């Protein structure tokens, strides 16, 4: 018998065609499909979802977590995790609000950037030089920063006067679509991060260090420098998110954004970035952020209770991790 299945025949190149494995290897396709399905479903079951003002609201509600998730993505790409990212941001808002009163908005912004960068450097230093697990390091710094913020704020909240500090909340119109500078800054942050991670050597090194630290070292990559840069950059991104947070709600509250760390991890994971490091995309995280935003908004429009929204988000996270695991096993 001789035919196409004859093992003696030389193997013809397999034509490229649709396969589940191929889809799993395209990390952006899954999240994008989920986002489109969610939008279509909510457009069909509610009358209000697809209205421009509602879509605008989803974007505006996604700004703070969206910006933070850029930093979380970079850290997770290095096979790390940052549980302190939200606490750093909240401290940033308090620092901005308290400094602005005495020294003005410009100094306040710079001070917050500096404070957040230093805290990022502390995380990075403990992970890089003491070689401690990022989960434990940032769990510790999360607790410390959260409590320090309470002490600094004296459990009070600090309203911020309209001005440079609330500038990212300023709205403007594109046609009939209203949006804020904060949304533009968030999209800009994703564009810059995407460019840096995919089009520059430093970005490729982030993937290399996360994917295989030993191979990266043997290739002459200074892993310590890569890790430090990522953690410091994430501190700066937390300050940017703090600025955006004051734009959304002009009141610095030490008790706000308590779950921001977990929400950013949710966005990153739903966006298809692997918690094991080395694979994923910051654009996936943007889609992941939007999926969570759309899901919450859509379920609210459909009259579903907040608690069920959390359950839905939780299921989505587990689903995303399952897909990641399947893709990894396939490749081993």
């Amino acid at each position, binding site marked *: 018998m001789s035919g196409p299945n004859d093992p003696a025949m030389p193997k013809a190149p397999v034509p490229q065609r649709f396969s589940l494995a191929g889809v799993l290897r395209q990390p952006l396709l899954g999240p994008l499909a989920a986002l489109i399905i969610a939008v279509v479903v909510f457009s069909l079951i509610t009358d209000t979802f697809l209205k421009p003002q509602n879509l605008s609201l989803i974007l505006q509600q996604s700004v703070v977590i969206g910006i933070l998730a850029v930093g979380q993505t970079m850290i997770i790409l290095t096979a790390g995790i940052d549980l302190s990212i939200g606490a750093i941001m909240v401290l940033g808002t308090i620092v901005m609000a308290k400094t602005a009163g005495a020294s003005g908005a410009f100094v306040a912004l710079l001070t917050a950037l500096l404070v957040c960068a230093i805290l990022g450097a502390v995380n990075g230093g403990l992970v890089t030089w003491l070689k401690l697990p990022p989960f434990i390091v940032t769990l510790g710094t999360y607790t410390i920063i959260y409590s320090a913020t309470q002490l600094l704020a004296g459990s009070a909240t600090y309203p911020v006067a309209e001005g440079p500090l609330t500038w990212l909340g300023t709205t403007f119109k594109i046609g009939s679509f209203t949006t804020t500078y904060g949304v533009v800054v968030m999209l800009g942050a994703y564009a810059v991060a995407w460019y840096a991670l995919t*089009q520059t050597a430093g970005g490729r090194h982030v*993937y290399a260090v996360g994917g295989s630290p030993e191979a990266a070292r043997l*290739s002459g990559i200074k892993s310590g420098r890569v890790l430090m840069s990522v953690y410091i950059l994430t501190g700066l991104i937390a300050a940017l998110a703090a600025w955006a947070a004051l734009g959304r709600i002009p009141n610095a509250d030490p008790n706000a954004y308590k779950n921001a760390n977990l929400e950013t991890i949710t966005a990153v994971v739903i966006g298809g970035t692997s918690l094991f490091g080395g694979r994923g995309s910051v654009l996936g995280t943007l889609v992941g952020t939007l999926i969570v935003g759309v899901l919450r908004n859509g379920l609210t429009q459909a009259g579903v209770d907040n608690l069920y929204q959390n359950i839905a988000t939780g299921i989505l996270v587990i689903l995303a991790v399952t897909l990641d695991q399947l893709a990894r096993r396939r490749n081993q």
Partner: protein
Amino acid sequence: MTAPVLQARGLVKRYGNVTAINGADFDLLPAEVLAVIGDNGAGKSTLIKALAGALIPDSGQILMDGEPVTFHNTRDARAHGIETVYQDLAVIPALDIATNVFLGRELRRKGFFGTVLRRLDMPAMRAASSAHLADLKIGIKSVNQAVETLSGGQRQGVAVVRSAAFGKRVIIMDEPTAALGVKESGMVVDLIRQIRARGIPVVLISHDMPHVFEVADRILVHRLGQRAAVVRPSERSMSDVVALMTGAAEPTEQERSGGS
């Protein structure tokens, strides 16, 4: 005797109470394949790591073209044209072939995009990687695919291509066939021959005696942290070499002093 490209004299490396190499000597001639063999713990990995800059010896000297050199890390050795292919496939599985080949030595675009925006020149890196793969006759369809989609032999091929692309003086291969099947090992042996044909000497660390005898010009036998002998495969049998390795046989005076 032609002047050696790479030499080591009296290298010593201790880990606590354990002496990994104890006065190791080493000579690599131009355009030769020098196999380094030895029992486990004979110190061959330590010797090779010192030559590749992956560790710093406690004492002793490394010379290139007769000039003393000091390697503080693998970058220093690479700057001298010494490239190493590691046993455990030092490639990043999730990254594409072209990125892996140029990892740590990326090319940037010319002009504004390259100097200010630091944009990578992926087209140039892809083209160069494809050319190198074709040079060494490694059949891989696209350099855009992730290394993890390749077979073990192809992955080792990528690692060899990377070293061949940048190793202007010396290429060191640490157990390049240990993780591979028979056919894929044969492919790596072919690659070694092709690199030698270009005039670049190869240091081959291997446990695989048939491969060593197939491809090596000279065989350095390491024993008890020192060079025990350098033999020519044409003059000695495999069992002779194993006997030298285990200390069951004595080398000739010439073999003991570093061979011809």
